[in-house]
């Protein structure tokens, strides 16, 4: 579940082929390099792998967390624990949609005193991350929580920012960012397709402010 999902009527998935031409922003190699760089950044910020737990937000966040963990263990030579945190039951829009399907939550170990890195594919409104923070708080008390996203597309509606960003992609609010990963969609690519009609953003701005860690 990505932030982008929260803004979209149920039934459309980010992997759905767009009817209008979609612009390729990152190809498979570029996604690979972005992941490798994020893996290094996370290790550097944490001064090693000690106490780290990567927690992906289903569906594509979990696949990304697995990739980051693999890249990090290649560097550090230790296994990095990876978990999945479904945030459906913590969403703030449950009563605006038909009943949503709940995904799988699985944590390899207690998050108490761990440094939890939340991993998701797209950071958009920030509402998914808000829900994830609430969910995490009910599971334990991490020493710190960081946020790693493959794409930051701007248009935040909550005071939330990512610690590690694979790629900042300035977008219009009505555009659709589709992250496809081989584990889920059989192909690695990030595309932007034009939206149907203008969607007003919370702050009226169409383009996001530059965020640290831009490509």
């Amino acid at each position, binding site marked *: 579940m990505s932030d982008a999902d929260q803004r979209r009527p149920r039934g459309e998935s980010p992997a759905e082929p767009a009817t209008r031409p979609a612009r390729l922003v990152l190809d498979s190699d570029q996604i690979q390099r972005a992941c490798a760089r994020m893996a290094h950044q996370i290790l550097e910020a944490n001064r090693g792998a000690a106490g780290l737990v990567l927690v992906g937000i289903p569906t594509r966040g979990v696949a990304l967390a697995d990739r980051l963990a693999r890249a990090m263990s290649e560097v550090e030579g230790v296994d990095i624990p990876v978990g999945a945190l*479904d945030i459906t039951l913590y969403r703030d829009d449950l009563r605006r949609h038909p009943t949503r399907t709940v995904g799988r939550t699985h944590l390899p170990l207690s998050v108490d005193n761990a440094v939890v890195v939340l991993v998701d594919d797209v950071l958009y409104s920030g509402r998914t991350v808000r829900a994830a923070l609430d969910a995490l708080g009910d599971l334990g008390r991490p020493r710190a929580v960081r946020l790693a996203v493959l794409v930051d597309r701007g248009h935040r509606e909550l005071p939330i920012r990512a610690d590690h960003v694979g790629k900042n992609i300035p977008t219009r609010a009505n555009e659709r960012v589709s992250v496809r990963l081989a584990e889920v969609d059989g192909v690695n690519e990030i595309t932007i397709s034009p939206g149907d009609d203008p969607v007003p953003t919370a702050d009226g701005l169409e383009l996001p402010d530059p965020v640290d860690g831009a490509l």
Partner: protein
Amino acid sequence: MRHLLSAGDLSLAETTGILDLAEQMSLVQARPVKKLPALRGRTVVNLFFEDSTRTRSSFEIAGKWLSADVINISAKGSSVSKGESLRDTVLTVAAMGVDALVIRHHASGAPWQVTQWIDAQVLNAGDGTHEHPTQALLDAFTLRRHFRRTAPGQIDFAGRTVAVVGDVTHSRVARSNVLLLQTLGARVVLVAPPTLMPSGVDSWPVETSHDLDAVLPEVDAVMMLRVQRERMSGGYFPTPREYTVGYGLTRTRLGLLRPDAAICHPGPMNRGLEISADAADSGRSRILDQVAAGVSVRMAVLYQLLGGEDDTPAGGSADARPRTEGRREAPAPDPRGQR
């Protein structure tokens, strides 16, 4: 999903969805904070016209762990004992603005009747000798876990044989289980003395037998039913002792069961009558697993019914007004399948 009145209303996909969701909900029991915010602001009323321990308390825990406000009303100690009718009681409760009504009633069909009066979601927690759908769901949940543990990688219910033994005539648990196990693809054998086999059972999708010893060796699971003395006017069997000899899961019969077969009982047990202490406390007994599953399954059901947008027009207290005659004759199309 709108209302849960009968296990027969659930499709295979809906049933599997509820069981999968219940697996996720069961993780909450192991968490430090046993609370999910999904039903915050929802109100669930448990309206129980019959005694209950596990069903009422597990519905209450399920609602509370999902952050709903749960109110319990039992016939004893309420205006029902002053002679208030079911309709008036239900309309009174609905007028307070409840989102779901969990109802147990001694009259078969009472929950369905209630859906004709109010707009809140109605969950059948046992109606007379008719149905008890959440019990069937928690039995299916318990059995699915058991099958997955004893035979990993196999299909959950197809090709499985489940024996339902005892007082089938008076058992809503048996009726709901027959319907749900049929949906799931299991083969059901009803075993009962001729006096406790319901009339019309030939039209049910089951096999029947009066010989427990012949059935036990082939089953993957055996569900012992409680002998419901409160529903019996007498004459169904000569003596309790004779019932036990013919249809009780005694220590001797335990030896006929396969080592990997599961023993279930919906509770409360009459130890020494339909089930021996040896069977109830054996390693093959899944009876306490059933109780634990009750909370998870009821959380899943409450979320399915209340977790999304209201499918009736918003309007607060307007929901509580009795429906007009015209609307009752032409009910709104069933929104099932739109979820």
